[in-house]
């Protein structure tokens, strides 16, 4: 019965730490490590990631080029470090738009129900069935290539995942006693939706977002032929993999190593997701 709230701050932190699932700690450490590596890239490598050096093309790993050099003589290690910047950014901004838009739509549809939900659900189905390429081409044509178009096209399409998750939560929550209680105390729909339904509908999207972040990186590289994603010469893992495919039989390091980087980030984020789910589900 001793009050958690009254405990002194250090004790509280320690408690929080011990309450944090191990997966969350390990996953967090991996993600954090990449953030640090990305930030400290100039300190860790003396190479310029975009400086081409035709004389050292395709140098295998070892020597000055720890992880080899790519088809333009750029140091793969350095490009992986700097690539983390673009990838972390893609992972982050690639999900921000979808999660906001999707959560709002799912929330409104699920909470208000009725005709609005009907219309939103049709919109949902249209989006799911809509060919992504058409959208990407159109957006790239209007806004030009690059990350901005990438984020916008992702937002316009990927919201459906989050809308689906949030809506199914909101559908249940809108009849939850505490939501009815909020209504009966005279709170408006907006307040009820934002402060009572929303915070309780966030666990599934918060878990999904970790996988989604990795998928956005992969998508960016898979659709590079539409002009999606970062533009050369900016290093980015997915683009590095794509660039290296022609060399897979002769210079494996160009694509395999950034591939391992993505896998490690995926691992980190998934562990965070697992831990987060456990933490949020136990409700403390």
């Amino acid at each position, binding site marked *: 019965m001793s009050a958690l709230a009254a405990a002194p701050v250090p004790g509280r932190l320690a408690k929080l730490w011990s309450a944090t699932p191990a997966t969350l700690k390990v996953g967090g450490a991996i993600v954090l490590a990449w953030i640090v590596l990305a930030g400290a890239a100039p300190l860790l490598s003396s190479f310029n990631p975009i400086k081409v050096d035709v004389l050292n093309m395709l140098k295998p790993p070892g020597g000055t080029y720890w992880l080899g050099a790519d088809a333009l003589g750029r140091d793969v290690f350095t490009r992986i470090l700097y690539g983390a910047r673009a990838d972390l950014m893609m992972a982050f901004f690639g999900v921000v738009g979808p999660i906001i838009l999707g959560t709002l739509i799912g929330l409104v549809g699920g909470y208000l129900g009725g005709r609005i939900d009907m219309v939103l659900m049709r919109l949902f189905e249209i989006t799911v069935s809509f060919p992504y*390429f058409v959208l990407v081409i159109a957006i790239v044509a209007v806004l030009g290539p690059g990350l901005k178009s990438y984020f916008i096209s992702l937002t316009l399409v990927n919201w459906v995942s989050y809308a689906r998750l949030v809506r199914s939560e909101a559908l249940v929550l809108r009849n939850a006693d505490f939501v009815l209680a909020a209504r009966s105390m005279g709170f408006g729909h907006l307040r009820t939706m934002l402060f009572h339904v929303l915070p309780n509908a966030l666990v599934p999207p918060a878990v999904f977002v970790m996988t989604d972040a990795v998928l956005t990186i992969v998508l960016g590289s*898979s659709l590079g032929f539409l002009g999606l994603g970062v533009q050369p010469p900016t290093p980015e893992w997915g683009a590095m993999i794509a660039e290296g495919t022609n060399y897979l*039989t002769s210079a494996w390091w160009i694509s395999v190593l950034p591939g391992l980087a993505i896998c*490690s980030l995926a691992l980190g984020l998934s562990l965070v997701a697992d831990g987060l789910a456990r933490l949020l589900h136990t409700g403390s």
Partner: protein
Amino acid sequence: MDRFAFLLKRPIQLIPVLLGISLITFVLIQLTPGDPVRIMLGPKASEDAIAFVRARYGLDQPILVQYFYFLLNAIRGDFGQSIIYRSPVGPVILDRMAPTLFLILYGLALSVAFTLGLAIAAARSRGRWVDQFVRLVCVSSVGIPSYFMGLMLILGLCLKLKLFPVSGYAPTLIDNLYHLFLPALTIAIGVTPILTRNLRATFLQQMDADYATAGRSKGLPERYIFGRHVFWNSLLPTVNLMGVVVSFLIGGTVVIENVFNIPGLGQALIRAVLTRDYFVVQAVTLVLACGIVITNFIVDVVTVVLDPRVKL
């Protein structure tokens, strides 16, 4: 039975969705810079020639007028002409439906097999190394792009070990089990981790469910509880997730079709989009949309069959 009333309602809901998709697609692709006639005639053609052909396809009309005619014709079963191939849309895409359909079904069949195997193995040995290993593999393989995976499989299994053909779609069904094994495997490698994570989690959750405890208290063997109770109660979330995955696959097989050179719908769509072959884009989009709607429909039917409580 009332629970199956939705079987009748669905087709009606389909209409606004298909209309919406076709209108948005039509307007968007037409507004995108690029002229299919120019692509058809090539960069060396004269302006005269281009204007002449544009008029022939009615592309000189306002977009909404064109859309109206498209709809009118579509209702009569005529989906227009492929501008790039200078021939009716039908034959251009009909041949391509079978390979894509087969590929997706085959890929799903493998995914389901892998998923069941892995998830059951993991859940039955929860916390032990099999479980941890399955989790690790599932978690870290999400980051492998399918074109990369496909290429690795080709290099390893086709060229090194000479186990499978690199490409192609064979005329008979049985042959395709062999020919399309690698592409289906690539799909499965992409899909299995997602499904397995979900199914394993549901298994673990259901193994702790009250009815499982009740089963134990009756002295039912663990195997029986898992096989007869937990298993069937765990399927629904994964079936639903599979519906979503199929939706993404239906439009997203292009990468795999490219790597394994399978003449499928995904390839047709992407080519049509890249060449602004308006009516092919339109037709393929509608076919894919129907595919997605049918998928959701099947998921709903399976849901209702699996769970007697569900009403739709």
